[in-house]
């Protein structure tokens, strides 16, 4: 019973995260949401009795992919100085989806 509640909450969170990765106006926020998505995927693998896949996902999916996206983000964001883009005090901008 409690186990299926865990499954349900985890799956809803995964879908919610995937949706917000794609619709959030700020690219940096999308990347951070994607990193947390990877972390929660590892929990899903554990629940599906696949600890080997969970091991690979924990190493590659959350660690390496997150670092890759974060270091590519700097190059792919507009503006002459990256920190003005990433470090805005107010909420996200509305430059397309």
């Amino acid at each position, binding site marked *: *019973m*409690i*186990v299926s*509640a*865990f499954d349900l*909450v*985890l799956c809803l*969170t995964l879908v919610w*995260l995937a949706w*917000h990765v794609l619709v*959030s106006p700020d690219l*940096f*926020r999308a990347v*951070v*949401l994607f*990193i*947390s998505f990877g*972390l*929660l995927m*590892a*929990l899903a693998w*554990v*629940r599906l*009795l696949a*600890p080997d896949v*969970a*091991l690979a996902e*924990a*190493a590659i999916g*959350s*660690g*390496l992919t*997150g*670092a890759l996206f*974060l*270091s590519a*983000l*700097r*190059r792919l964001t507009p503006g*002459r*100085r*990256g*920190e003005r883009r*990433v*470090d805005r*005090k*107010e909420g996200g901008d509305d430059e397309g989806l």
Partner: protein
Amino acid sequence: MTTLYVGLALVLLFSVIVGLLRIMWGPTAADRMMAAQLFGTCGVAILLLLSKGLGQLIVEDVALVFALLSALATVAFVRRTWTKEGPRQTKRLDHD
């Protein structure tokens, strides 16, 4: 036993979900990154509780890898994304 430990893992999962709010609001980039760091620690705890609750000892190894690599994303963020100087790409284009 299973009910208790998976229930505690569920409580921690809810705490992660509430922490998502900081990623959504976070005024600065560092706030968002710190929330992701919280997820790393919470993920380790959830994995340990699940390993005890479901009786899968090997899941502790997954928690070990999580703990080992949880700093990687933050280090990449501080060193590559949130730096002061301009994009490195402009420099390289000048050389070309």
